[in-house]
């Protein structure tokens, strides 16, 4: 029996179903990979342009606040100079101790550089969207790896990986959790989770732990895929209720995540 049909609707549906089928049995993967490789530079440039526009828009808005900020920072700088001298001394001592105990160096991990090509998230605002980078499993990436900014600050972690791309959740996005610790006397540990795409909350901190505003928050190393000591942000507020088992801290990220165009993924 011969099937004679030139109905465009039938052709369209058949072509679409065939493509979906080929995608799920991975036959389409080489074509998808090739396509992604071909459009990678264009996507990266488009994202950079958008990001630059966004940055200049923010810059314009923040210019007024900057003058006041500069004055404040000048005063802070004076006190930091004194602190720096103390820290240098401590750092030298720390280095000696690390060598003696044969600790692994802070940079004893590989990093893979990647360009941000898009922000994705159905029905979410710009701040809450996940980032898409142009590196995937072919570059050795896998879920749960930490992602750093150019300055070495943790911006998020990988949640999903394809052959040539990966999806990153930002530390400020709800549900993006990391095992963290404070750089205080007790090395207080907890779990960080994003809040509204703006700040980070550190939870599960025992009531007896003393937390101060300004404490630096770093990765605790409890997660197998994320090395310890990577900077996340600083504590700006502490929420403690006497009738609660745990207390929490609000962490301010050091970096503005809106203008990220280049990131590095840490492979331990």
């Amino acid at each position, binding site marked *: 029996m011969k099937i004679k049909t030139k109905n465009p609707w039938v052709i369209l549906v058949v072509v679409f179903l065939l493509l979906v089928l080929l995608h799920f049995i991975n036959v389409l993967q080489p074509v998808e990979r090739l396509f992604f490789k071909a459009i990678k530079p264009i996507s990266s440039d488009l994202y950079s342009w958008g990001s630059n526009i966004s940055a200049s828009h923010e810059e314009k808005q923040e210019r007024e606040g900057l003058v006041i900020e500069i004055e404040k920072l000048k005063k802070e700088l004076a006190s930091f100079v004194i602190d720096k001298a103390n820290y240098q001394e401590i750092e030298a001592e720390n280095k000696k101790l690390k060598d003696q105990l044969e600790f692994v160096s802070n940079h004893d991990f590989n990093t893979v550089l990647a360009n941000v090509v*898009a922000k994705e998230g159905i029905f979410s605002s710009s701040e809450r969207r996940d980032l*898409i980078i142009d590196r995937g499993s072919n570059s050795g990436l896998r879920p749960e790896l930490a992602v750093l900014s150019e300055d070495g600050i943790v911006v998020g972690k990988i949640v999903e990986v394809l052959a040539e791309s990966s999806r990153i959740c930002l530390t400020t996005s709800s549900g993006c959790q990391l095992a963290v610790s404070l750089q205080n006397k007790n090395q207080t540990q907890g779990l960080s989770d994003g809040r509204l795409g703006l700040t980070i909350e550190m939870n599960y901190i025992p009531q007896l732990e003393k937390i101060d505003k300004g404490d630096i928050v770093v990765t605790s190393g409890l997660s197998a895929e994320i090395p310890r000591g990577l900077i996340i942000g600083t504590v700006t507020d502490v929420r403690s209720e006497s009738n609660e088992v745990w207390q929490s801290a609000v962490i301010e990220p050091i970096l503005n995540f809106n203008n990220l165009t280049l990131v590095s993924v840490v492979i331990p």
Partner: protein
Amino acid sequence: MIQRIGKIIILIIVAISLALIQFSFFPSLPGLAQYFYPGLIVLIFILFFSGLKLSLYFILIFGLVLDILSFQFFGIYTISMAVAVIIAAFILQNFLTNKSLYTLGATILIFTFSYNILLASLDFIFSGFVGTLAISQLSFWKTLLYQAMWGLLAAVSLFHLLVLWFNRFKPFFLENKETM
């Protein structure tokens, strides 16, 4: 034949370019600009001025590019757009028969509403009914409102451009017709 192949190539280039712009450029912009979806606006214009057949061919390329680039369930964009455009075409054919600015505006609103409802529902279904349905969240209605607003703005702009264009050339064509 060559003309037809040329048209297909143009359609493919336009669809891929719009998909890339929609995927990478606009979401990184600040404020309301991040809710501008040029591909969807072009799709409604294709449906309004050319018909359902060409708009479905456009979706097949445009939607698939988005599906390949995206981390959502494969096919979610293509299915949502195709069903929404069929709904809009049905209403356009049976209820909004004259081609005016109001009809175009209504088509944009119907398409935007159907597309977003479908996208949210399919996303919820394909994610295994995990989490909350986006329709119950404020961000969904915000996206819908801004998308519709951009669509209507594009429709008004296009109509004014067309009016300007035809007013400019109408006397010339009329004059030519009279002298003939």
